[in-house]
């Protein structure tokens, strides 16, 4: 499906294609997430669900800078990252419907999406829990002389956890090829950054570990993409880890059940004026690279993709209860 190819590198003769691909990816993630909200309301998706709406530029921009052999570790707000990485929406949807066809066999749910074929190593419900895993993935590549880069996505809330500090230190000490991508959306669930961090200059904090630390406007997919490309180049070449703060904002609540008492509707409205999709669309239109017909066609195709994903999930297999004890240990053939 065309919407899946956003992360492939496009030749420089047609730079607009790459940027249109980025927009397409953001739109796919946006429509997918909007549909998830509806399905959750209809009780078809259960448990906890954390939507990525508003932050699409980060996943789309960073994942487009990676090679297919690179590693990704993400958080529980990872639908966008999985899709941007190339995991087909139908497998993500099936996972959230709890079907055996889901990317984690229905065993993980929204917070534990895995796809080893795409080197997408989850989905983690413990804040900062994925950082040590990222260290390990990078360590293995480092020991074996592999040219892979590991990207570890986390929210700014993770910077309060001890594991963040241990991992920054270790990554710098061992010069591991990791990009610590901090999606700073200003709120750790309901706690604003200023109420939890003694110093809200996050790159400064990271630089204290002797790690190259950058910051980028997370609502501008082109900026994110360009910065990510530079970070990947630097890290892959053996320059050690990079800390990349992406300043972004989630337009919806922390999870489906969150009355958002901790922030004002005005603040949300202000940030919505910087919707990454609007920014990208506007820019592409201004440069004559995008017209209404293309956009309409894009939306129609994406709607079809999402509809297909839902139908696939709906028709999926409910794993028999007798198989409950599978996947505790390796199943030997």
């Amino acid at each position, binding site marked *: 499906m065309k919407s899946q190819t956003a992360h492939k590198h496009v030749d420089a003769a047609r730079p607009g294609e790459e940027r249109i691909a980025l927009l397409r990816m953001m739109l796919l993630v946006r429509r997918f997430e909007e549909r998830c*909200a*509806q*399905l*959750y*309301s*209809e*009780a078809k998706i*259960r*448990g*906890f669900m954390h939507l990525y709406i508003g932050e699409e530029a980060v996943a789309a921009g960073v994942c487009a800078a990676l090679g297919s052999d690179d590693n990704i570790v993400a958080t529980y707000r990872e639908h966008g990252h999985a899709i941007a990485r190339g995991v087909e929406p139908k497998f993500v949807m099936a996972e959230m419907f709890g079907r055996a066809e889901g990317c984690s066999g229905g065993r993980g749910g929204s917070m534990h999406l895995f796809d080893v074929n795409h080197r997408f190593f989850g989905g983690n419900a413990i804040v900062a829990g994925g950082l040590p895993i990222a260290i390990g993935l990078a360590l293995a590549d480092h020991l074996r002389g592999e040219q892979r880069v590991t990207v570890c996505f986390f929210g700014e809330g993770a910077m309060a956890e001890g594991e963040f500090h241990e991992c920054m230190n270790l990554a710098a000490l061992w010069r591991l090829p990791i990009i610590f991508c901090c999606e700073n959306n200003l709120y750790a669930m309901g706690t604003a950054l200023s109420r939890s961090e003694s110093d809200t200059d996050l790159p400064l904090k990271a630089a204290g570990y002797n790690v190259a630390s950058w910051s980028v406007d997370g609502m501008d997919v082109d900026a994110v993409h360009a910065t990510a490309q530079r970070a990947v180049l630097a890290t892959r070449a053996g320059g050690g880890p990079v800390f990349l703060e992406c300043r972004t904002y989630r337009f919806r609540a922390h*999870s*489906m*059940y969150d*009355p958002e*008492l901790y922030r004002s509707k005005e603040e949300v409205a202000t940030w919505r004026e910087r919707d990454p999709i609007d920014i990208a669309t506007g820019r592409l239109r201004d440069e004559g690279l995008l017209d209404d017909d293309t956009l309409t066609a894009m939306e129609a195709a994406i*709607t*079809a993709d999402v*509809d297909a994903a*839902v*139908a696939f999930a709906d028709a999926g297999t409910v794993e028999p209860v007798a198989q409950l004890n599978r996947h505790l240990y390796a199943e030997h053939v």
Partner: protein
Amino acid sequence: MPDGAASLARVPFTMPALGADMDEGSIVEWLVAEGAHVHRGDVVAVVQTDKNDLDVEVFADGTVTELVVPPGEKVPVGTVLAWLAPNGAVPNTTVASAQVPPVSLAAPAPEPATVYEPTAGESHVTSPVLRHLAEALHVDTAHLQGSGRGGRITRDDIEHAAQPRRRISPRARRLAREHGVDTSTLESGTHAVVGEDVLRSVSMLAATDVRPVMSVPAQAHVAPRRDRQVAAVEMRRAISRVMTKAWQEIPHYQVATRIDLQRCLESLAALNSDRTAATRILPAAVFAHAAARAATSVPEVNGHWLDGSFVAGSSVHLGIVVALRTGGLLAPVIRHAADKDLFTVMDEMRDLVTRARTGRLRASEIGDATITLTQLGEGEVDAVVPIIHPPQVAILGLGAIHDEPWAHDGMLAVRPVVHATLCGDHRAVDGRLGSLFLASFTRFLQEPTS
């Protein structure tokens, strides 16, 4: 793909699931009225749940045709709150599914509590619960002093009055069930009744399997003839039962030997030279004594096969088979036979055999043998191949003493010979041990008084 969505007359707007633990909610306020045009993403109502008030959005474009649920009414997730007439804009697959069945996660209604109200001021038990308890514990409450208010009988009173429940281990209960033993008849001293206690009782019963003869006053009495006949029939049955079981279950093997008794009988004659007829030592006693001593030197033949393994006897309790004139047999036991001298063995044997034949044995004298000796000394038979008495693992059978040809120093002699056959339970005793026993028995016979 439902491109026919636009042609649907109406689309439901249902109570959304807004969290992992939300089962129901109520509308606080409708933010639209019937007839209002709405777009997907518009907030149309405020919903109250257990935890919070939340803005709720609609997922389709259209016109509100009917508000179904009024504010304040609590409804389960999935209930239709309002109907929309869609514009036929972006088709929505979820529209195709009809009424989403409400997720019923409400807890089942609690069962009415059963309450027992004891009436005050009466001393007999009116509470059904306590009456039942008293019955179960075999407590007669009519004569119970109540310690509760107004002399009421309390639970404590009943439990206190109940006989303490005998401690019987799970294994003992199982074995008792399997062997048909009444646990109230088991003796265990100060410790809880355990498996061994049951098995011991089983072995006692197996040895006799007759109605136990209760201890009787010192004077002899002979039971009436009819009773003796009945007892004899029952004994026959019991013996047949035990012997059949033994033959079927125990893998018997035999080792046999002929024993030259010349020296033995010469020693015996010397011993008896200054004794009266009534106090003479009989060969039977010599055999018994030698068998007991041989059993201490080969302890593997002395004990019981219980619950799958051999339990060695702590002493040699020698069962001696006594044939009864009425038919049938008994096997009274000389306890600690190896620790007694020949004269004591003789005296006990004389006493036991007499009382066996007159039906005056005590129950404690006919159980617990760790090895048995059977002799058919009165008949013409050379050898006897006896059947082991379970749960013992060996039995020594002796034929009559006959003069037989005997090779000695290359010359043919005639000696008094007895044929000795040891039958062993192959699960516990192998042939080698049986042979060792017979060799030991033979040795002890050569020196009857040592």
